């Protein structure tokens, strides 16, 4: 972090110091011991070529009748109530442990359980699990479990005379979730105290408190489905999974087939653009264009310094502006494609189309998460072995694994490149498939559906190229 005291020591060093200080703040966060190498040019070319070919082949071979829209689920097994209660208890205990570690443990980010548990296991790990196994977060959701527990006890005491929850405003939709995820991304990518364990623990408590208030006002399920940012975020990814947990039973379904069921209520498109945009900014903010000597960030920061802000504040404002602009850019790209689609067939307004095709952005958002954070999960995730044994960083060894270290050679840099590019290409294909399937239900004529998809194709190619570029040397070096 920036220490203004030292900079003041030499006035001449001030300008140089500002530039030199930027890359430090540009890092994802202090937890990252190892950053990915930019993908080499030959792989970039390969990725782009495969994307283009996949797109054209998709146009040719994709089915002429909607398939995913009509996919059926098959019941696999039932889930006893006991398990639900148990999962809730585990979730609450885990939450309490992380918050306690953050508040009571050492304030060195890497030695405290809280930062790694929140940024790596919770934020990155759960999306990976959700895509494979369905919405696994829901049963463990700590604030929801607390609310349900309280509701059960109060319901018993009041003998069913509880007031009915207020009606959740339709216009509010997923907006609270969109703002919640944007706020989290701001803390992760902009806030100077992002790695501070006690700050994180405090923010976690604040978040849980807001959720409890929301659930008590609007009802537990409604609030969780629409406004609990993390629950909504994980549930979106879970829609791609081949497993579906609902009504105390497990169902299986074709992969991706949960996505078309997404009700794109107000705020949904914004949420998806926030998801893609914030991840993009994480990559972009590490690149030369942003952080280099003549990059955007130093120039902007200079402006804010001139306005009388301190170094630290100017830096945070600069990064906030970048974050918001990137989200806006992603949203603009999507709206552009949708506007193009609106010109086909002449019956659909762009606003309506933006909502009806929103679910095709879920795989793109997932691909960005995998491409940017897979290595963080693979490497920093290993730190959990040591952190679980010594959550407070006070020398404890609860499980006998306190001295475990991170093996940075579990996957080679080349292996990570393939995962990154593979994720982007697969996400691209999945997004195209979903959009194609939806087009067949939106447009009555196959011909119009296909023509509308040229626009979607352009959008998807745009997103995937952006994703590839963000990983490449031209953006990173």
């Amino acid at each position: 972090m920036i220490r203004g005291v030292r900079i003041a020591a030499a006035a001449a060093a001030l300008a140089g110091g500002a530039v030199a200080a930027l890359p430090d703040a540009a890092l994802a966060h202090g937890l990252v011991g190892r950053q990915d190498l930019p993908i080499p040019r030959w792989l970039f070319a390969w990725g782009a070529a495969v994307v283009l070919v996949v797109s054209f082949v998709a146009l040719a071979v994709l089915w002429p009748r909607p398939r995913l829209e009509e996919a059926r689920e098959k019941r696999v097994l039932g889930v006893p109530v006991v398990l639900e209660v148990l999962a809730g208890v585990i979730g609450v205990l885990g939450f309490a442990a992380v918050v306690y570690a953050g508040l009571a443990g050492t304030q060195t980010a890497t030695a405290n359980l809280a930062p790694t548990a929140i940024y790596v296991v919770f934020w990155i790990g759960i999306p990976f699990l959700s895509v494979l196994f369905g919405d696994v977060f829901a049963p463990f959701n700590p604030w929801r479990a607390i609310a349900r527990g309280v509701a059960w006890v109060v319901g018993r005491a009041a003998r069913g005379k509880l007031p009915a929850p207020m009606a959740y405003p339709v216009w509010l939709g997923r907006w609270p979730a969109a703002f919640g995820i944007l706020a989290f991304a701001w803390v992760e990518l902009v806030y100077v105290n992002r790695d501070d364990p006690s700050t994180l623990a405090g923010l976690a408590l604040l978040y849980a408190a807001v959720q409890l208030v929301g659930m008590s006002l609007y009802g537990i399920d409604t609030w969780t489905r629409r406004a609990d940012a993390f629950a909504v975020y994980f549930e979106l990814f879970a829609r791609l999974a081949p497993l579906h947990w609902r009504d105390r039973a497990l169902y299986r379904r074709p992969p991706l087939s949960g996505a078309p069921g997404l009700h794109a209520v107000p705020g949904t498109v914004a949420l998806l653009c926030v998801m893609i945009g914030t991840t993009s900014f994480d990559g972009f903010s590490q690149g030369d264009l942003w952080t280099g000597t003549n990059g955007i960030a130093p120039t902007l920061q200079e402006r804010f310094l001139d306005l009388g802000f301190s170094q630290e504040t100017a830096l945070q404002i600069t990064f906030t502006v970048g974050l918001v602009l990137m989200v806006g850019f992603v949203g603009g790209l999507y709206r552009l494609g949708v506007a193009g689609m609106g010109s086909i067939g002449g019956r659909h307004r762009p606003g309506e189309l933006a909502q009806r095709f929103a679910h095709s952005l879920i795989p793109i958002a997932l691909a960005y998460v995998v491409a940017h954070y897979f290595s963080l999960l693979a490497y920093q995730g290993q730190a959990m072995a040591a952190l679980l044994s010594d959550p407070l960083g006070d020398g404890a060894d609860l499980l006998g694994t306190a001295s475990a270290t991170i093996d940075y050679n579990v996957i080679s840099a080349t292996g990570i490149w393939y995962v990154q590019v593979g994720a982007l290409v697969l996400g691209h294909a999945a997004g195209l498939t979903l959009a194609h399937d939806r087009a067949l239900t939106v447009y009555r004529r196959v011909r119009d559906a296909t023509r509308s998809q040229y626009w979607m194709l352009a959008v998807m190619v745009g997103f995937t190229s952006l994703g590839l570029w963000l990983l490449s040397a031209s953006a990173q070096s």
Partner: protein
Amino acid sequence: MPENTPPGGEDPGRGLSGVQRAGIVLGGLAVLLIVFVVLQGADDSGSPSSSSAPQTTATQTATTQTTATEAATTDDSGEDSTTGTTTDDSGSTTGTTTDDSGSGGGGSDGDAESETGTTETQPSAPAVRTIRVVNGRPAGGVRRLEYQRGDRIRFKVQSDVTDEVHVHGYDVSKNVSAGSSVTFSFTANIEGRFEIELENAHTQIAELEVKPS
């Protein structure tokens, strides 16, 4: 863009005939094949990882010399201009690491011989680079030290503040006291980019990059 003109007019069942579909798939494969051939042709050795190796080695030696001269120019304020003279003749296999151990303090680099064994065809590990810390900050901004896997990483930190120099990922730490220097020497066995920082001040002073060999 292949414009779809379904043979059955507006038949909602099929957009393209089977032959057309097969044709497009074949076309896609042909494009991939062409890309493959072009990319193969671009780098003569074929395999992607080894193909980039000669180029990077070349640039690496080039940057070695530029960083050396950079060090010479930026270090004007300092007392020893000997840092700039640590050039290394890349052709020889003897690994002449002309370290200026006289200027700072403990230059413990007795393993110059061992590194010639690991990198045979390439020029031996470049001269010791110096990261100069002035007023607790890296002089000239955060620079990148580039290596390939298997190389011997050697660099020196000369600091005017007392702190602990920590190389992330490799997790190597050494204390440096104000006005002295400390030398690092270890094998590049983890790929990626790593921060080198003054641990207590939380100031990044350089970036270590290790590419696949």
